[in-house]
């Protein structure tokens, strides 16, 4: 059941993005920005956690979930550190993902060469 919910919720989020790309001529970069900000706003309003509880990775793996992590982090930051937490909370919660992207990105770039498409 967990797997099924992860599949259809995650798939649905991607399908919405695809419809936006095909129908509105929004570029993929804009879609990603839109989705991450949407996730942050939904997370801030406490509306995203129920989706995470229902769909698990179906809600956390899409970039919307990254926005939610940032928002939850900011709220937690304010709870723990007060005003300072506004600036430290979001990035602290997302630190694992950001650092992993940079480190893996760096290593992959050292090891691999780009290839022409056929």
């Amino acid at each position, binding site marked *: 059941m967990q797997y099924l919910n992860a599949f259809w919720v995650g798939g649905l989020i991607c399908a919405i993005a695809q419809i936006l*790309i095909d129908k509105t*001529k929004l570029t*993929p970069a804009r879609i990603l920005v839109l989705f991450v900000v949407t996730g942050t706003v939904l997370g801030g309003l406490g509306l995203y956690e129920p989706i995470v509880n229902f769909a698990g990775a179906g809600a956390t793996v899409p970039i919307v979930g990254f926005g939610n992590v940032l928002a939850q982090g900011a709220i937690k930051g304010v709870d723990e550190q007060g005003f300072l937490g506004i600036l430290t909370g979001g990035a602290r919660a997302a630190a694992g993902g950001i650092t992993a992207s940079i480190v893996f990105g760096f290593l992959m770039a050292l090891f691999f060469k*780009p*290839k*022409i*498409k*056929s």
Partner: protein
Amino acid sequence: MGKRIGKQTVRLEHPVGILASASIAGQKEKDGPLGSDFDVIMADAEWNEETWEKTESKMQKEAVRLAIQKAGLALSDMHYIFAGDLLNQCIGAGFGLRELHIPYFGIYGACSTMIEGLSLASMLIDGGFADHAVAVTSSHFCTAERQYRMPLEYGGQRTPTAQWTVTGSGAAVLGKTVDVPHITHITTGKIMDMGVKDANNMGGAMAPAAFDTLLTHFQDTGLSPADYDLILTGDLGTVGRDVLIDLMQNEGFDITDNYNDGGCMIYDLDTQDVHAGGSGCGCIASVLCGHILPAMQRGEFRRILAIGTGALLSTTSGLQGESVPGIAHLVAISGKE
């Protein structure tokens, strides 16, 4: 005087012969319908160079060398070379041709550059300013992608109207003779901008320019499509090709019988996943120099029109929300007499 006819056309007093031409292409182009026509096929995208920019430079250099060699001439016989490409500051030409020591005019007309070069070179020769001149251009899928679009490994989806940048180069050596296919007329195009903003629909952006130049050519010369065996546009792709046919039809010119587009010819559109067809400076350069001119030499075409089509955009203009201005230059080529 007497060389200009109509608004934008020049009739050369002494037609300028295309003494020889050479073409270089990549693996995907080899797999296309014209694959066996190219003089040199590169084994891979790198062609033993460190960067793709270096590869593209080498393509221009080797195409020029080969064309001059086929003409039975020496580098030192060349009075001028006209060259350009799609890379910023035309580094394909600037770096590729630096060791050839031929007086160099760098030109930029986006994908119309080959025909622009042929136009200028033949006017110089007809004007008596040169005995021999070369025109060359190139494009490379990998250099164009990284400059205009996304990194190669980026996971993006192309739209159905997008075109595929041809990895290819073509060079032509011009001189004073009519024993070979020769340029008789030149119609220089105006910049046409119909407000198309979609950089993934180049054919649609360039078709009005091709239309304007072609129509002006017929008006200036009094000729009609029936006077030519082939009307060849550079890289309008399927969308631009169909648009051009419509636009000409609306003006009372039926070009369906003898019209084709380099971008539609160079790939097998059904099997090669190139969406609307090929594009790039190297598209018409390699199709013309590899396929059409040798066919004219064999007598397969008597008179043709070659129209180079270019989109004069940059990544900056695109990001700033500008539309895509189009340009199209035309040369009329007759078979050997």
